[in-house]
């Protein structure tokens, strides 16, 4: 019954958010049915749209896994966006160097580079300062996130990674490091099955790590009760660093996969916000790796559907941001809802007893 509730409550929160979003749309003078219709058809209406949705959800899923690890370890990694871009930058740099390597090895090198870069970005300064001097990881990961994004921007705007003679952008990564698309249809959605496979493997790895290994057991113990963790003989400082490293590692992996699978180079912009949306993904999934898939697809669908909605029904795509906000609100309310139900029941029993 408990597990059923843990699925129903986030779903209920999403449904409520959609209903209130609909009322909002109607109040603005649009027809909610056409608006949501365009959103849904934009997300799932054709093979290409479904492909776009999956493409949009992959980075959310992979970053979301990293966030889930940090949340389960009792840490708030708010800076996954910076870790994502640092991972992406490292992957791109390795992607246009070492071109003499065989393709598969070069690909693995890029991915590993992205993972290590993300891990170090989260682990070294936020991790070590949290463990040894107690600085709060919300502040440090956030600050490091800005530094990471600005560093990446510098590198392609006049820095060593800028492609000469172009707008701010890096050189393209070697052809043989780019994930193959296999079919024409998948290419239109920029959806590579390699990236899908990596995301699925990542989900399985994180699930196994958290629930089946002593490493995950120690992370969760530290996350739930630090004093009991010390009592259990767990090195809390070490696992604080490990948790942030792992969390950043998946953000970095997401950056690498996005570069190898979709972007193929660093472009000016850096406004993906994957790191922030992934926090909501993880929250909605209750930090469960399997749930992250569903929540990630949901937000991927909101993104692609939102663009279509704007084109078809003229409702600004920002409405999807409103929906996101409402979902966060209702997920956060999830603790309040059972209380409201309890309060209502009490009132009713009181009434019936005083009537009797």
């Amino acid at each position: 019954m408990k597990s059923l509730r843990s699925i129903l409550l986030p779903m209920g929160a999403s449904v409520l958010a959609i209903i209130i979003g609909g009322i909002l749309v109607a109040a603005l003078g649009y027809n909610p049915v056409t608006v949501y219709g365009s959103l849904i058809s934009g997300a799932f209406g054709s093979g290409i749209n479904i492909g776009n949705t999956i493409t949009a959800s992959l980075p959310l899923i992979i970053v979301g896994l990293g966030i889930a690890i940090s949340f389960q370890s009792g840490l708030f990694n708010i800076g996954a966006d910076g870790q994502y871009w640092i991972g992406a930058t490292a992957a791109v740099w390795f992607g246009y160097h070492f071109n003499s390597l065989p393709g598969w090895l070069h690909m693995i090198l890029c991915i590993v580079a992205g993972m290590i870069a993300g891990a170090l970005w989260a682990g070294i300064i936020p991790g070590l300062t949290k463990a040894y001097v107690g600085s709060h990881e919300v502040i440090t990961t956030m600050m490091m996130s800005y530094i990471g994004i600005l560093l990446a921007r510098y590198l392609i705007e006049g820095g060593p990674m800028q492609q000469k003679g172009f707008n701010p952008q890096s050189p393209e990564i070697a052809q043989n490091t780019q994930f193959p698309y296999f079919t024409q249809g998948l290419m239109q959605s920029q959806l590579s099955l390699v990236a899908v496979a990596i995301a699925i493997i990542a989900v399985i790895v994180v699930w196994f790590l958290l629930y089946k290994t002593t490493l995950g057991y120690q992370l969760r113990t530290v996350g739930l009760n630090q004093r009991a963790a010390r009592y259990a003989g767990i090195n809390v400082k070490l696992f604080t660093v490990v948790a942030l490293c792992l969390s950043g590692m998946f953000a970095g992996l997401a950056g690498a996969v996005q570069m190898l699978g979709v972007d193929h180079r660093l472009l000016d912009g850096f406004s993906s916000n994957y790191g922030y949306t992934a926090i909501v993904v993880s929250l909605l999934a209750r930090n469960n790796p399997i749930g992250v898939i569903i929540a990630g697809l949901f937000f991927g669908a909101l993104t692609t559907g939102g663009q279509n909605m704007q084109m078809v029904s003229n409702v600004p795509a920002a409405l999807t941001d409103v929906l996101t906000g409402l979902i966060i609100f209702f997920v956060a309310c999830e603790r309040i809802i059972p209380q409201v139900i309890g309060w209502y029941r009490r009132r009713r029993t009181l009434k019936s007893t005083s009537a009797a």
Partner: protein
Amino acid sequence: MEIVDLKKWFPGVKANDGVNLTLRGGEVHAILGENGAGKSTLMKMIYGLLEPTSGEIRFMGKAVHFRSPREAIHAGIGMVHQHFMLIPALTVAENVVLGDEPGRIKFDRKEAQKRVRELSEKYRLAIDPSAKVADLSVGLQQRVEILKAFYRKAKLIILDEPTALLTPQETRELFSIIRGLKAEGVPVLFISHKLDEVLEISDRVTVMRAGKTVETVETKGATPQTLANLMVGREVVLRVEKSDAHPGEPILQVHDLHVRDFGRMERVKGVNLELRRGEILGLAGIDGNGQFELADAIAGLLKPEQGQIIFDGDDITRWSPAERTERGIAYVPQDRQLDGLVLSFNLVENTILRDFRKRPFAKNGVIDRTAATNYTERLIREFDVRPPDASRKASELSGGNQQKVILAREVSRDPLMLIAAQPTRGLDVGAIEGIHRQLVRLRDEGKGVLLVSLELEEILSLSDRIAVIHDGRIVDIVPGAQATREQIGLLMTGSRGHSEVSMS
């Protein structure tokens, strides 16, 4: 006050299922029952926090239906909660008059102090009305709560587990206050699960079990044994049955140990101690005198500033907690919910908390759920943990069963030594009996047991030797068989009296 066939049913639970009680004027009436017997539900109904499902409360001859504590207070019911509801930053007088302050617009501080002083004189509750509550001891804070009740013209005082946080001395003082109230004709309802206190202070005792009042008896004719049997519903072994100790080699030696707590306060100030195999060494002391920091330091959770800890021939002073666990130190920490368990883990995950790295629970870093579950189910059977369901979260268990899980885990690791800090805190008679038996069994198997407890009775009935700690130092170590309550109580205050200092 009279309570007739009062019932309170929650969905699926009959918290109170037929409570009958008559409180006469000027008597001290105790309500005795195990945890979960329905005492607090009854209190909440009397105090207007819960509405009864059926039945009636009569107060001063009239049937009453309180819908809120405000109405109950107004009718003259005074409640002193186990956890005080005071504002530390305010003075005694300000706390007492809070909610009904003298003065029209401006608060009349002088008048408040005067009224509080009059009350404290009338009921012989000596206290300085201008003192800040934050500066008061727990015992004095309780007096403030009692004064608060009288300020609101209470005609009846309910004391909910009033001695839970008090030292033996403060308990004495509380009892003389209660006797004073009785002399004034104020009826007192005294709720407790401690037999000796109930026997000492009350005129009549009503025993509750499983939501029902079992019987009301005159205290004069009652014995601890009869009350315990009524409470638990079966024969209880009250005195710990144990044979003589056969102490062997020393298992633990502590030399000149100094320990600071997390707030950098020096709590242990040069302790020397020796524990032998096959003995229970009781560490008695008033809370806050360094006993728990000493236990933490031996278990490795606090790093000593100075000194040495020798365990079974090894100098373990610099060892990590994990290494000490591995070497054979078991530890039942003082706070079972904060230290001993991860409340949102299930029983399997909690059972392997100390040994999750080792076979059979883990191989190559992967946890073997089947082995862990089988082991947990075995412990649940052996230690009679209820409900017997390994997939339950620790938070879903009662305090007694949580403690059983911790004890089962620690004892079944086959340790050389067990440090048990407050192993029976807040538990009822039936559960205490089982835990005491386990401690004696460990001792008889030749293990060393260090029992750290604030309950003098527990120390006296279990220990082969008693070490008394005061202000971070061992005041004296006395043989358990000859020790008296008064002697230990005196030592706990730090005065050595004329007994010899025998530090081993």
